[in-house]
Every structure is written in structure tokens, then in C-alpha cells.
């Protein structure tokens, strides 16, 4: 039933996958995890230029202090999530195979707030964008695109709609849902503030209909605030990947982001729902993005939970806090099961973009087996971008950038719908990444 303050999706996108939900942690209230003994902070937790450490080994650091920053526009500062001593600064291998520097901090057990923390003073749009950058906020739903870059709308571009991504279409993850249930006022207030400072007149919050309580709660808050003319909750079908940027813009506003384009091209800016709450909190307190909600789930974990963890906490520490393993996990995934990255060991730290840690047993996950492609076309049907994954795979293997360009390989967002549906269990996403690489290299030449 539609209440005031909400409406249905305008469009349904073609393709996608009927993934299982597994939202078993939905009603588990978030628990604040105490500071672990050590944290590791890679200097790249976003898309764009890596940060340079602004502290030295042996330095004393405090909660919320900037420890890494960059002069580049497309970047976001990194802050100390705990107080303690910088023990080491050394190379760190990101899951995509790139090495960056990482700062290791040993906790003093105090969690002392940095004295430089001040509530930002905002008088105009420039102040606001500076504050967003200073908050360290990036696309914490997975991609890690710096939020201040998104909100910096170029001269001549008209953005009329702020789309808030609360779809949470990945199985298992309930951290955005918990954010809504526990922090709805911050979300609405954050949206209101972004609209006010950037001059975007309307906002739409997209949430899948498997979270009716979250939809109802936000609609209620919108109506209570008298904001229903400007902010609305859009009830999305529960289908993967409604949380993908282009699919969500299409569903909420009815607009199609052009191939190779950005939401700005159709007058839209998109921010993750938990990100909005973090931003609102920063504007109130000056405490930047140093902790975030993470769903810990999977059959192997003893106590599935929603935690508010310091960024940089190792997966092992999170697992220990959740009572360890029931059984040995076969895979540990940071992020959702459709797009998350499998980890080599529990030492990997939680980054800004990680919204879940999945400890999966071998019967709930799968390993690709790479049987021959039978050209069944399920990948073609599943691709929400209307690409032909198996053809892209073929030309990636043939190292043929011309055909890859014709097949629009670079438009692939690696949602994994194709590989999820593939009866031959081919690692299609891996091949698609290869195809994108081949195409990119040819363009670079």
C-alpha cells in the first residue's frame, strides 16, 4: 500500500538476476565494536588518487585526525579511527592487485578524540563541498567514488534530483537497512542539508520492497517533516541489481544515463543512504568517516551481526568479536556475494567501501568450473546493460579491441548477473574485466 511520501518505481530495467535474499541479519541491532589492538589503513579507499601519509612512524595519533591526504581533486582524506601510535607505514596489496602504502596504528586503548575536531562552519556551497571532502566520505556502497566530487556540479549542468541509494540489492547485506531503522532522522536531515547547500530541488530514496519497514519509516519521517513535496521514497522491486547506479536512476527518475555517461548528464546526483547519515553526523559533530556499519554474515560465522566497526579493523578481529567460526569458511568476501572481493586471509582490513564481511561455507558459495559455453544466451538475457558477455569473453581472449569496442565492453559494471546465471559456471566477470582492460589499453595507445 502506498502511503504519503512514497511511490512506485517508474521503470523496470531489462535483465538482472533473481538472487536469493538471505537478509537474516535484518533485525539484528547494530553493535558498536570497541577499538581493536591495531588497525591498518591503506592509503587508497576510494576511486582516484591515492593519499600520501601525513604522519610518521612513532607519531601519536587521535581519533578523527587526518593521517593521509592528497592534492588531487578526485581523492578523499583518510582519518585515524582509533587513538594510539603509528607503528609502521608499508606497502599493502589491494584486492585488484595494486600496491599502495598503508598506515598501521597500535591502539592506546583510550579512543581519545583529536583536539582538532571542530564542527564545520558552512556559509555557502564552497564551504559545504570543502566540508564533504574533509569528512572523508566516499561511495561507501561499494565503488568508493569521492562524494564531494559527485556533489560538485559543474557550471552549466543542471541537477534537479538527488537520488539516495538504499536499494541494498546484494544478498546478505543489511547495513543500509539498519542505518535506516536506527538513524532515519539523520538520513532525512542529511538529505535536506545536501538539497539546501547544493540547490538540488528534489530527492528520491530508492529502497527495494523486501524492506517494507524501512520504506514506511522514511515515508513517515518525510511526512512528519512536511517534506513530501520535495522528498519521496521510491519502492523498488526486489531484483538484482536495482542498486546499480544507472538502474536506480532509471527506476526512480525514468531517465536513461547515456552510454559512457554519468548521472549528472541526466540531472541526477546519487549518494548512498548510509553515506548521507554519516555526512549529516559530520556536519553536526565534525567527526569524519572513521567507523561504519558492517554486516557480518554467512553460515561459517558463529554470531551473525551488524557492527559499527572502526575502519581498518582486520577481518579476523571482526570475526573474533562475532564469536569466531562455527565451521571453517571456504570463502571470506568483503562486500556482497555478487560484487564483493574474496580475501586471501583474515588479515585484510575493513575499508570505507566494505559494507559486509561474509564468511561463506563451500555449500553456500561456488567456484567457477569453466565448462564450455553452450551459447544458451542466459548471460545476454541477464545483462542489465544489454551487453553480450559471452561474445565479450571471446574477443577478450582473442585480444581484439575493435570488436570489444563494438560490443561496448567498457559499459560492463561487473554486477555478476551473467556469471550468476551461466550454466557452464564460467567466471564471466573475470573475462569481462579482461575485455575492458584490452579495450582500455587500445584506447590508451
Amino acid at each position, binding site marked *: 500500500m502506498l502511503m504519503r511520501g512514497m511511490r512506485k518505481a517508474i521503470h523496470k530495467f531489462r535483465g538482472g538476476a533473481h538472487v536469493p535474499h538471505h537478509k537474516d541479519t535484518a533485525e539484528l541491532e547494530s553493535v558498536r565494536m570497541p577499538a581493536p589492538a591495531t588497525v591498518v589503513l591503506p592509503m587508497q579507499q576510494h576511486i582516484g588518487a591515492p593519499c600520501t601519509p601525513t604522519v610518521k612512524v612513532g607519531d601519536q595519533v587521535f581519533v578523527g585526525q587526518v593521517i593521509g591526504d592528497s592534492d588531487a581533486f578526485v581523492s578523499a582524506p583518510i582519518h585515524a579511527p582509533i587513538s594510539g601510535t603509528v607503528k609502521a607505514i608499508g606497502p599493502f596489496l589491494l584486492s585488484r592487485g595494486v600496491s599502495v602504502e598503508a598506515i598501521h596504528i597500535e591502539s592506546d586503548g583510550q579512543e581519545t578524540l583529536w583536539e582538532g575536531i571542530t564542527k564545520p562552519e558552512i556559509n555557502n556551497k564552497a564551504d559545504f563541498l570543502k566540508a564533504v571532502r574533509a569528512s572523508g566520505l566516499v561511495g561507501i556502497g561499494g565503488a568508493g567514488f569521492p562524494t564531494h566530487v559527485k556533489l560538485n556540479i559543474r557550471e552549466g549542468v543542471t541537477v534537479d534530483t538527488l537520488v539516495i541509494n538504499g536499494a541494498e540489492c546484494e544478498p546478505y547485506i543489511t547495513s543500509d537497512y539498519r542505518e535506516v531503522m536506527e538513524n532515519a532522522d539523520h538520513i532525512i536531515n542529511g538529505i535536506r542539508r545536501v538539497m539546501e547547500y547544493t540547490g538540488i530541488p528534489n530527492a528520491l530514496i530508492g529502497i527495494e520492497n523486501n524492506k517494507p519497514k524501512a520504506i514506511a519509516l522514511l515515508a513517515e519521517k518525510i511526512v512528519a517533516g512536511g517534506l513530501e513535496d520535495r522528498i519521496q521514497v521510491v519502492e523498488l522491486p526486489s531484483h538484482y541489481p536495482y542498486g546499480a547506479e544507472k538502474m536506480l536512476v532509471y527506476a526512480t527518475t525514468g531517465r*536513461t544515463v547515456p*552510454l559512457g555517461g554519468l548521472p549528472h548528464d541526466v540531472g541526477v546526483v546519487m549518494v548512498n543512504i548510509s553515506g548521507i547519515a554519516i555526512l549529516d553526523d559530520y556536519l553536526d559533530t565534525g567527526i569524519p568517516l572513521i567507523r561504519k556499519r558492517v554486516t557480518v554474515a554467512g553460515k561459517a560465522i558463529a554470531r551473525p551481526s551488524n557492527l559499527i566497526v572502526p575502519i581498518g579493523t582486520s577481518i579476523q578481529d571482526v570475526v573474533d568479536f562475532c564469536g569466531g567460526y562455527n565451521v571453517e569458511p571456504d570463502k571470506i568476501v568483503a562486500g556482497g556475494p*555478487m560484487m564483493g572481493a574474496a580475501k586471501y586471509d583474515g588479515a585484510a582490513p575493513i575499508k570505507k567501501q566494505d559494507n559486509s564481511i561474509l564468511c561463506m561455507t563451500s555449500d553456500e558459495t561456488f567456484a567457477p568450473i569453466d565448462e564450455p559455453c*553452450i551459447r544458451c*544466451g542466459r548471460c545476454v538475457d541477464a545483462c542489465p546493460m544489454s551487453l553480450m558477455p559471452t561474445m565479450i569473453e571471446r574477443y577478450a581472449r582473442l585480444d581484439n579491441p575493435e570488436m570489444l569496442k563494438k560490443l561496448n565492453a567498457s559499459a560492463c559494471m561487473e554486477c555478476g548477473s551473467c556469471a550468476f*546465471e551461466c550454466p557452464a559456471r564460467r*567466471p564471466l566477470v573475470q573475462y569481462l574485466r579482461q575485455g575492458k582492460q584490452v579495450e582500455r589499453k587500445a584506447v590508451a595507445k
Partner: protein
Amino acid sequence: MNKLTVTASPHIHSGASTRRIMLDVVIALIPALIAATFFFGTRVLLLTAATVSAAILAEMASRMVMKRDTDTIYDFSAVITGLLLALSFPVSLPVWQAALGAAIAIVVIKQMFGGLGQNFVNPAIAGRLVLMFSFPVALSAVWTPPLFGSAADAITTATSDVVTTATPLALLAEGAPLPSYWELFIGAHAGSMGETSILALLIGAAYLLWRRVISPVIPVTFIGTTLLIVTLAGEDPLVHLMTGALVIVAFFMATDYVTAPMNFKGRVVFGVGCGIITALIRLFAALPEGVSFAVILMNILTPHIETLTQPKAFGQKGGKD
């Protein structure tokens, strides 16, 4: 801790498997096999056993020769080739010829081109055509009447060892009287073993559609185009629908993944092309039936159809807004 598995995303899967898809096709062909046995006797089962076992053995032997793993015999794809081939034969075909057809289909058409997923034409159709050119009389001139129905008495030729009659399509070409619609529908007429019972074929087709193993695009456009053209030519579309191999080929062979386009537009072009060629052969060529040629010609065109009908990507200029 044990070693963790590290693979590219996604980390969950729908559970679909090639084996299950192939098994579904086998299941879908069982009604046709039962109907064939009912109308043409237990020799149907003998021929089917011969083609299926020849297909599996040929797959195993050829892969052993090529030093490739022979586990592929368990994926049911060779079983499908054997089954479809048997169902496309007249019941009187000598067993050795049937087995030879299956071996050619598997070794020459499938394995020599790289095995599952690599053949450029449908193995069963190609195997049948090779036999048709090698043994034209056994494959297209000797038709055993069904055990039941009016056609059972309509014996036109009797020699010492075989009793032959004419298929409805041949009768149609001669302007001779045909069995009733009901008899055509249930399969009580002369023809290849598995093609006569439209009822049994439609049960199997419905199963495949329900299991989403096949999409209706190719069968609908194929059959629709054929019937439209024959109707315009002044012939009875119901007779054309229920005689010859149109239904079995449209649902079970033209939908073969490997040799048909994967995209919607490509499938429409493929289906319409099959329909046009089938109708033209039926109406104007010396042969009474043309579905095999139609499908094999369109199989060959499939890579080009696919390239020319590539779907527009989401947000691509010229695509849907």
C-alpha cells in the same frame, strides 16, 4: 585455518547447469518417443538405443583419440543428438545406418569442430542429411504406415519385406486424400518416427518452455512464418503444421543454443528465415520437406545474424530510452 578460496565475483550461483539443461531436453523428448513406439512399434526403441549408444560411444572414442577428457559423455548432449536423430528416421531404417548417422553427427559435426558448444550446424540435422544423401531410398522413400488409424490401411506399395505408404506431405504434393486432422495431431500417420505426434511434441515443448530451457521466439517465428506463407499460397496451414517435421524441428532443433542466435532480434531473424526457406521448399522444390535444409542454412548464417543484430547497450544512442 584452511586455505580460503579466492575467485572473481560473483560468489553465489543460480544453480543452473549444462547437464540439467540437457537432461530437460531429454525429458522433453520422452513423450515423442512413447508416441512413436505406440504408433510404429517396438522397433522405435531398437533404433533409438542404436543411435543413442552410437552417439555416446562415438563421443567417447573420438575424445580418447584426441586425448581429451571423456567425462563429456555424462553431460547428456550426445544423448540428445542420438535421440533427435532416431526420432527423425523412418522406423524401417536399418540399424547400422542409424548408428552410422549418430557417429557422423558426433565425430564429424561436433567433435571435429571442438566439441560441445563449437559445432556450426546442428549435429542431428547434419547427421540426418548425410544419411539422406547416402541412402536416399531408406530415408525418404520407405514409409511404414502407423499401426492404428485410417492411414494404417492406406497401403500403397507392398514388396516382399517392407510395406510402404506415402507421408501426408507427399500425399499433399500429389493432391491425394489425407488422414483426418485428429489423426495428424495425435500422430496416426506415416512419417519419421518422432515427428508425427504433434500432441506428444507439444507436451515436450511446453515442458521446455516452462523450465525456461528454450525461449518461444524461434519456434513461434519459424512456425508462424511457414504457415503464413503456405496460407498465402492457398494451402491448408493446419496440414502444414501437423505434417512433416515442422514442430519437432522448430521446438527441438532450431532452438539448439549452439547454432542459433542468442539475442532476441537475432532469434526473430533466424526464425523468420527458417520459416521462409521451409515454406519455399515445401511449395516449390522437388522435395516434399524442407525444414532440415532451412535450419542448417540459418545455422550457417547465425554468426552473421548475431553480429548484425547486436542489441543496443543500455543508454546507447539509437537504443530504447
